[in-house]
């Protein structure tokens, strides 16, 4: 154990920046917290991989090489207990020298530790020592290589030197581009030196792919199995909870949107002409639309938070960046006319809105209902008005009110949009922040289907359930059985989105 004694020396002297970061016994001891050092040469995408795996979009990722210049630890903490740790390391700066040193000291039982002992103080090797330190401390190795590039001498050097460390190791082929011609060569080369080789696009990885990668780590060191399984379970449960939360948010959005009402009271004397009345109606319609937009934005923010996105935001080309009431959105999302008719019939033809109108008039006992007008051209959606404008005259004032939304199409469009948003949020890799979206050879986003939303492909039964839920929500009814069923429908859409059972329509 003489070498073990030497291993520790450089740690005490040389690693002031890491001092106290982690009790090293926690690593060596029997509890076996898997520590994985993410390695690779500068610019291979190590930080993106860590960011995606730990869903940390605040890790500074820069396209420039060597942005990560210090070893940083990214623990996964379950209930306050660290169950595994990713260590993002700086890139190799002197791989050839390390390899030659390793080869010259092949009889050392702990090469990484011995190297640290020898070069821990050399500023020229500060990055190399920082990245070998976790390995000396017993970390497993994840080598990240850029699969879009051809294998270079340096890559061979690094593979070989990592092999010489004798630690459990896995390689990640992080190919951010669509060049795949080098991939087989990489696979061959990596297979020779690594226990496991996986392809993983840190910018496109979905939840399922992340979990698969974590699962694969089990294969490189069996002792980690319990901890990794716990981690995976925790990730799963956490994911299920996020989906629950998002479902709540969506259901609440639908209920809020469908009960939204905008009212304005104007003195009769102030209304000189019908034009003025029209103008007021237009303003009301606009106000209602604005309120609905705001509700949608709030819900989006909530979902964004559920999925731990701090940085990500929508690309301007997305359908989501278009106005909620724009023609494109209306065309792409929601139900087709026929589906809508069937669903609407089931929901008691609320679309007609005549009953609401009548009741609205009566409810205002003393007032005389002088007009139930549809909300002008502004609010038209699928050929029908967004909501009815109600005008009642009482005691010298006219009370204009618009809402709740009676357009049968609108709730489906809104639902589609928010699900689309959720789909993007849940499938947006956290390591993608620095991705060069304009790069000519980046991996295209997932397959392009026809431009339609999610609700359209539901069954007619589900359409009816949703329509009934919308109808009940419009009347302000809570906790109806339809709501419960609709919640289940939405929940299952979200769930299948995260397991990629359903096209995420990321192109929309």
């Amino acid at each position, binding site marked *: 154990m003489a070498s073990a004694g030497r291993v520790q020396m450089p740690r005490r002297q040389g690693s002031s*920046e890491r001092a106290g970061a982690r009790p090293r016994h926690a690593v060596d001891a029997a509890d076996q917290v898997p520590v994985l050092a993410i390695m690779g*040469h*500068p*610019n291979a995408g190590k930080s993106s991989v*860590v960011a995606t795996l*730990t*869903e*940390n979009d*605040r*890790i*500074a990722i820069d*396209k*420039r*090489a*060597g*942005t*990560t*210049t*210090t*070893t*940083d*630890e*990214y*623990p*996964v*903490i*379950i*209930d306050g207990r660290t169950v595994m740790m*990713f260590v*993002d390391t700086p*890139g190799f*700066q*002197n*791989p*050839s*020298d390390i390899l*030659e040193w390793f080869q010259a000291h092949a009889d050392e039982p702990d090469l990484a530790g011995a190297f640290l002992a020898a070069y821990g103080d050399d*500023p020229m*090797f*500060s*990055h190399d020592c920082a990245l070998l330190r976790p390995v000396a401390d017993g970390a497993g190795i994840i080598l990240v290589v850029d699969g879009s*590039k*051809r294998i*270079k*001498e*340096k890559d061979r050097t690094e593979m070989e030197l990592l092999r010489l460390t004798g630690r459990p190791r896995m390689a990640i082929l992080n190919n951010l581009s669509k*060049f795949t*011609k080098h991939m087989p060569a990489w696979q061959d080369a990596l297979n020779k030196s690594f226990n496991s080789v996986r392809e993983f696009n840190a910018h496109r990885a979905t939840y399922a792919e992340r979990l698969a990668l974590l699962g694969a780590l089990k294969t490189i060191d069996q002792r980690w199995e319990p901890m990794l399984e716990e981690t995976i*379970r925790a*990730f799963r*449960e*956490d994911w299920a*909870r996020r989906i*629950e*939360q998002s479902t*709540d948010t969506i259901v609440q959005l639908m209920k809020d949107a469908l009960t939204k009402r905008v009212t304005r009271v104007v003195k009769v004397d102030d209304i000189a002409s019908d034009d003025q009345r029209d103008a007021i109606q237009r303003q009301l319609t606009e106000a209602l639309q604005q309120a609905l937009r705001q509700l949608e934005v709030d819900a989006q923010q909530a979902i964004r*938070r559920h999925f731990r996105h701090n940085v990500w935001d929508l690309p301007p080309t997305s359908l989501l960046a278009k106005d909620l009431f724009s023609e494109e959105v209306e065309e792409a999302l929601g139900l087709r006319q026929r589906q809508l008719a069937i669903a609407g019939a089931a929901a008691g033809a609320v679309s007609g809105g005549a009953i609401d109108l009548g009741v609205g008039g009566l409810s205002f006992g003393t007032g005389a209902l002088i007009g139930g007008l549809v909300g002008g051209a502004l609010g038209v959606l699928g050929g029908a008005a967004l909501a009815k404008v109600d005008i009642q005259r009482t005691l010298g004032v006219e009370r204009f009110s618009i809402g709740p939304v009676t357009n049968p199409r609108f709730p489906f469009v809104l639902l589609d949009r928010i699900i689309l948003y959720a789909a993007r949020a849940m499938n947006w890799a956290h390591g993608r922040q620095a991705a060069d979206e304009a790069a000519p050879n980046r991996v295209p986003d997932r397959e392009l289907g026809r431009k339609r939303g999610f609700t359209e492909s539901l069954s007619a039964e589900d359409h009816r359930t949703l329509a009934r839920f919308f109808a009940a929500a419009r009347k302000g009814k809570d*906790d109806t059985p339809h709501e*419960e069923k609709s*919640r289940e429908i939405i929940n299952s859409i979200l769930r299948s989105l995260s397991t990629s059972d359903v096209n995420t329509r990321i192109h929309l």
Partner: protein
Amino acid sequence: MEPAVHTGREPAAHPSADLEPDTTRWRLPDLLDFDYYVDRDEQRMRGDPAERKRLAERDRRLYRERIAAEIRAPEHTPAHRSAALRRWLGIRRGGEDPAIRALLPGSAFARGQRLVAIGLSVLGFMAGIGVASALLQYEGDQPVNVSWYVFVLVILQVLLLAGTAAAWYSRRSRAVQTAVQDLSLISHLLKPMFGAAARWVQRQRLAHLPPDVREQAKARQGLLSGHFALYGPAAYLPMLIPAQLFGIGFNVGAILTTVALEWFTDLAFGWGSALDVQPGTIHALAHIIALPWSWLLGEGTGLPTLEQVQGTRISLKDPLFIMDAAHLRSWRWFLALAVFTYGLLPRLVLLGVSVLTVRRTLAALPFTHQRTQALYARMITPQLETAGGSGHGPEMPIPGPLTPKNVPRAAPRAEPPPAATTPAPPKQAQPPTSAATPTSAARTGGGSPAPAAGTKPRPTAPTRQPPQRPAAAPEPKGRAPAEKAPQPQPSAPAARAKPAAGEAAQAKAPPPASSPTPATPPQAPEPAAAGSPAPTPPAPTPPVPAGDLRRARGEAAIAPDACLLLMHVDVADMLEPDDHARLQQLLHGHSGWRVAGSATFGGGSAMANQALSMIEAAEWQAPPARVALLSDGSQPPITETLRFLRAVRAAAGEHAQLLLVLVGDPDGDDPLPPLAEFDFQDWQHKLEQLGDPYLRLEMLAGPAEEAE
């Protein structure tokens, strides 16, 4: 609403939690309190989305620290959910201020329910007394008619019970359901009573609180809302027990009245019928009715004998006095026992059943409402966190210059003009640098720091400026004249040619003039520059295969227009023989140099040493040395690369002209593709930090198309 920060500590703040019985049993008031707390959390989450995380943390902590260990059932089972939620409620409630706790909807409701129950039993009791005394009305002229008494107090009650039982057992059938729904209108009458009573209790309690607590309670949303509703299977539970209590009160009242009247008054009982009913039939009926107690109190006491039955037949034509007084009293215990057996006992049983039903229903509540589910999920879902730092630390190490190993075979030359105003990068201050500069400057090796400082600053300029920026280009005139000289290369991109020409013009003549160090005669650079123009045209430099040249290294003198080429193995591996020709042509375009010899580097120290020794061994016809390096620019420079550049500098001499040309990563047939602008800048940035004035960085071919 109290500040959210407190919520985390709620349970800990009040150790009175043990006032709360440690139980997993649900009672009706618990449901109301539970509803209240869940509602409150939900309000809070809606108010501030960040609250969601705090609540998740709180509930998970409560669960892990105080709940999980107490429950044996496996997670996700209904039993576990019910028990966990009940304990959660206990902890939440236990953490309340005792004054507030008394105001919680649950306890108010419990008190209200108690009040209603007592009220109903008293009401029943009074009703019982009223009915019994009416039925036992005895004026002395007519005996009390037993039939009416039995019919009203026994048969009717039994029928009512039977109806209830039948409805209960067939409660799933639709017809019964609608019927029950109509009947449940009664519950609509009853239900508000509980709410009203509970509200009244709350108000009473509130009135007795100290003002500050009262304000606190009023400020709590939902606490005093007077909303005492129960949902689902629990909805009818509050009615069950009070209803039975009413029945019990009624029967007790009737029995007590009967017994009391019999004790304190002399009652005559009889029966009569206009039909031809035989006393035997009546006796048999009485016998059947008395079956439950006849084994204990037989004929004569518990029920009348046949003779007594015969003797109590009321016949309106006969006066009362002809009857036997003993016979007339013989029914008394029969009546009391009948009401006891058929009225009171079943009610007592029903009370027991109701208590059990309530308990069972509560124990079986699924707690699957979505709000409850959310709470349960918060408790059992592990809190998953990922943390980490910024990843920012010291930049990559930049190696300092090395002391030249041998004296370059070049004429001594002065240090470059202490050019005007380039700011000195801090890096250069390292001792090795200053050592190196003097050596070359005066050849004396004296460590004078002054020249060192002068040398550094200017160098950066030439390295930095990218070829296609004409504005920057002219600046470096004095420094690297030799490289700039060969302007008329055909292969160079048009953009580049212009500045080059300008530079060259400046370079050739002006150097001596512009350089403020006239002391030292212009040496190496100028000759080189002078020599180069002649061979510039591409024709005179036929590309020599690298292999041949390699062999030739060190032996032959290197012509004034020739250089040594060091190729990175990554690039060299890709080159076909005819690529070399193109490479040399391109190189010539950049520098005007022919390739006199070449070597590879990048494959470990042995290879590097070989390359370095080739440089050291070279004989330069026109010193200083000229070395071109070809490297793969798609890989960012690392310390190792920079160290090699330093080593080359040391081997070639301080004023040797180094030209580093970069190629991109070949992805097609072209082994020497252009480099992306982005990668080039990355290299530039790193090389600047070397502060080597005689190191020039170029792209071999023009910048990659797509990068622009």
